């Protein structure tokens, strides 16, 4: 029970500090908001500011819970002392009794569902994984750590920064409750937007369409960030509307409204990279609305840009300093670095574009009523989303749809249903505007729409028409939230991965790094797991394992280039073909030089270079067939392996130990002559099958893993490699130390 109360306290204090910080800034800027919009807009604006303060605390390595608690309390106390805490603003026309009669029970019942889910122990996959995993890790370290082995550590974490103080006080559930506060802010902002337009029913109905959407419910009541992103994005749009309205009215403080616009637009990037488009939307909107104003236009754009930079630059700098790439984990072919392979981006993007949905014409049904493949559903009501186009009749409808379109522009890069959450408020408002703007008929139609949406989105009904295994809520989790069912018992019974995380922590000594053929929810596990595709290092190490059991990856081919004896200081193998398959890589297990039938021994004065992937060139020169240098991106003409012998060396043959998993590649051997020109020596090598009968690639693979300081291997029971390892751990040089909860843990032999 104490942990439940601590979670509430942590979340409440964080949410209060967000509101307080935003309210103080709004008052400081002298912007007068309407009373109803002050709370949600102050909350999201304050979240932006507070996230920077927490970023600074983590950078300074002083993230102790007293420091974080004092930060939250001092922000709230300052707001109380300055009077900003009070709900002030222009009074508004009250909501009608009928609207209240519909809204209070509908919002109330869904709020109960969400609140108890958020308050219950966290079991969401990404929430208990990286969203809270890094929060927990930073708190253990009292600041940012230099993580180069996990792409998730490089993503901007604007919402997660707010989980930090909440987690420090109330652990996992506090993070989820903070995210739920963003959902509340989003709904309130949409409601307020409708009131600003003078269309109370439109705002209320749209807010409910978004609020009760099943994917919004599960996401917003978990420690994810998509709903937070949606709240931040919508607030940015809202601030643009406020600025435009005050500008048209000739109000003096309208220029000051550009400050929150800039901050919020920048915060969009800080919450999720793809929300960066909202900054473009904001700049475009301001440019359009000031198109006749000359210098004021430039000043307005500069203000937005400058304040947005305050939010964006820290995240770019962090990534630049840690992984040499300001937009990591993307753009690795531009900002080349040893931590992420360019091919990872391609494979990752391919996965996110697919989700197993082969016929994209099925997507409207998949994201509205099925949800099994794209992991969640918007709800049956959104089958009527095309009605939103009728809102094009109205100026505000056009603006809403423009924002929704901009935010949805990246959807096909990741077709998971939750990636529709940021544009969803705009679509909901446009739908409600289209349906509910008719004189007299609007409110009844919207009330009926809300009732239908409530009925079809309530878990019991939603599961009737959705796919069987869909990411969604099931029931009100009163007992779990109040810990009447003990937290440990609930977590173990409802989340097998939790058991796996605890097993890892119990059986792997502290400080040890684990190579994982699968991951575990690391917010529950104080061990570093190098997992699957998440970094260049993990991909390379897992490639050692793959190359020892996947026939096409094994070094079964020897390619030999023979030529008249040549004396030169530098030789290289050059790839010259343009390939049609974007997945084609070039790989070399070993590159050897011969003279008169004798291999030239490798000497310390040799200097090795490669392009691409120069950082792993030594893998082709370590005399281990378990390791291989690969381009790790689509092979291109001009890729090479280059050896400088340190002095002239006679060579008449070059051999490559390689695998048959590449094709379309054409290689040639060249020598650098005395004039500095590369001279062709041989092409079209003779390829023969290698005799590897008495060589244990499996043992050699784990030897290499151990040589890199990694002493444990984690496998999942549903992995084909796990079967091979389990069938003969000894041949792999492994000893099983634990099994259960779908995983096995092995110790790697010294």
């Amino acid at each position, binding site marked *: 029970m104490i942990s439940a109360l601590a979670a509430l306290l942590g979340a409440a204090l964080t949410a209060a500090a967000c509101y307080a910080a935003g309210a103080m800034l709004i008052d400081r800027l002298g912007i007068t908001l309407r009373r109803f919009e002050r709370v949600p807009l102050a909350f999201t604006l304050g979240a932006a500011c507070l996230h920077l303060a927490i970023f600074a605390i983590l950078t300074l390595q002083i993230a102790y819970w007293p420091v974080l608690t004092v930060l939250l309390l001092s922000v709230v106390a300052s707001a109380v002392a300055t009077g900003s805490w009070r709900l002030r603003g222009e009074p508004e026309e009250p909501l009608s009794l009928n609207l209240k009669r519909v809204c209070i029970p509908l919002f109330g019942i869904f709020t109960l569902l969400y609140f108890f889910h958020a308050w219950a122990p966290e079991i969401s996959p990404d929430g208990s994984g990286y969203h809270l995993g890094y929060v927990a890790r930073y708190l253990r370290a009292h600041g940012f750590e230099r993580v180069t082995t996990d792409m998730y550590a490089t993503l901007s974490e604007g919402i997660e920064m707010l989980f930090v103080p909440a987690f420090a006080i109330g652990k996992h559930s506090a993070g989820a409750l903070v995210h739920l506060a963003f959902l509340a802010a989003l709904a309130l902002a949409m409601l307020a937007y409708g009131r600003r337009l003078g269309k109370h029913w439109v705002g209320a109905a749209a807010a409910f369409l978004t609020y009760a959407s099943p994917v919004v419910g599960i996401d917003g009541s978990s420690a994810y960030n998509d709903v937070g992103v949606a709240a931040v994005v919508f607030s940015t749009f809202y601030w643009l509307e406020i600025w435009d309205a005050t500008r048209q009215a000739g109000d003096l403080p309208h220029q000051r409204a550009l400050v929150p616009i800039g901050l919020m637009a920048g915060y969009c990037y800080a919450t999720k990279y793809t929300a960066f488009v909202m900054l473009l939307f904001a700049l475009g909107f301001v440019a359009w609305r000031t198109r006749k104003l000359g210098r004021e236009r430039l000043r307005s754009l500069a203000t937005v840009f400058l304040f947005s930079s305050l939010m964006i630059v820290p995240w770019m700098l962090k990534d630049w300093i840690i992984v040499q790439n300001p937009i990591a984990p993307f753009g690795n072919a531009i900002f*080349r670095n*040893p931590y992420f392979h360019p091919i990872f981006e391609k494979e990752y993007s391919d996965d996110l574009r697919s989700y197993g949905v082969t016929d994209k014409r099925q997507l409207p049904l998949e994201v509205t009523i099925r949800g099994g493949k794209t992991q969640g559903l918007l709800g049956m009501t959104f089958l009527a989303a095309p009605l939103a186009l009728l809102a094009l009749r109205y100026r505000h409808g056009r603006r809403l749809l423009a924002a929704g379109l901009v935010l949805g522009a990246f959807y096909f890069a990741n077709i998971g249903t939750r990636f529709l959450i940021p544009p969803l408020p705009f679509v909901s408002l446009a739908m409600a505007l289209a349906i509910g703007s008719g004189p007299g008929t609007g409110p009844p139609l919207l009330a009926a729409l809300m009732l239908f949406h409530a009925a079809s989105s309530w878990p019991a009904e939603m599961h009737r028409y959705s796919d069987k295994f869909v990411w969604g809520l099931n029931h009100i989790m009163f007992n779990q939230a109040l810990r009447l069912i003990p937290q440990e018992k609930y977590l173990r019974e409802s989340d097998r991965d939790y058991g796996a995380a605890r*097993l890892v922590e119990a059986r792997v000594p502290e400080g040890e790094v684990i190579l994982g053929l699968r991951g575990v929810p690391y917010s529950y596990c104080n061990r570093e797991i190098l997992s699957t595709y998440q970094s260049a290092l993990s991909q390379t190490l897992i490639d050692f394992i793959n190359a020892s059991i996947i026939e096409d990856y094994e070094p079964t081919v020897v390619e030999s280039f023979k030529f008249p004896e040549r004396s030169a200081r530098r030789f290289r193998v050059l790839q010259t073909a343009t390939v049609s398959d974007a997945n084609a890589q070039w790989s070399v297990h070993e590159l050897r030089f011969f003279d008169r039938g004798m291999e030239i021994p*490798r*000497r*310390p*004065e*040799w*200097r*090795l*270079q490669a*392009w691409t992937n*120069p*950082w792993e*060139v*030594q893998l082709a*020169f*370590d*005399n*281990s067939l378990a390791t291989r240098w690969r381009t790790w991106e689509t092979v291109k003409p001009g890729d090479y392996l280059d050896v*400088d012998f340190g002095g002239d060396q006679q060579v008449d043959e070059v051999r490559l130990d390689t695998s048959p998993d590449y094709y379309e590649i054409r290689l040639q051997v060249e020598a650098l002559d005395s004039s500095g020109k590369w001279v062709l020596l041989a092409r079209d090598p003779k390829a023969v099958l290698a005799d590897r009968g*008495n*060589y*244990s690639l*499996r*043992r*050699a693979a784990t*030897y*290499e893993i151990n040589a890199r300081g990694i002493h444990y291997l984690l496998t999942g*029971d549903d992995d084909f490699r796990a*079967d091979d390892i*389990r*069938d*003969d*751990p*000894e*041949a792999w040089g492994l000893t099983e130390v*634990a*099994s*259960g*909860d*779908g995983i096995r843990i092995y110790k790697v032999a010294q």
Partner: protein
Amino acid sequence: MPAPYAPPEQRQPFENFAPYRIHRIVNMADGDAEKHFVRDIGGLAGTWRWTGKHPEVRVFLRTNQMLRYVIDFTIVEATFKDTGPVTLSFFVNGHLLDKATYTAPGSRHFEAPVPEEWVEAGKEATVGAEIDKVWVSPADHAALGFILTAIGLRQK
């Protein structure tokens, strides 16, 4: 572009080269051991479990080449006092592989080659043992066979 690298330490071939051989032995202490149980195996006590008359497990085999039946078990002195010598029959996929009679209590190991045609590669196989005499507890009438530590198949 990093500076050119020197050649790294040169790896040498392993002297204790161990050829790859498949093991599908269910150790009673395994976290997922119960997933393999078919019948007559009781709860965990340390690293072993009591069996009934005919304990049996299910294992997945990717090959049927050069397989051997393996079982580690204990004839318990307390039950042996009442049952006297016992005979165990060993089965793979319902085929009787062999029988052995034990005239004294103690820890035992039994293994024997399995004919290829009894097992289909890529499918599950059942592996079991049957004791001819069980000991019946006077207190709760539970029928106890022997203590099982590990059972399964492995490649020679």
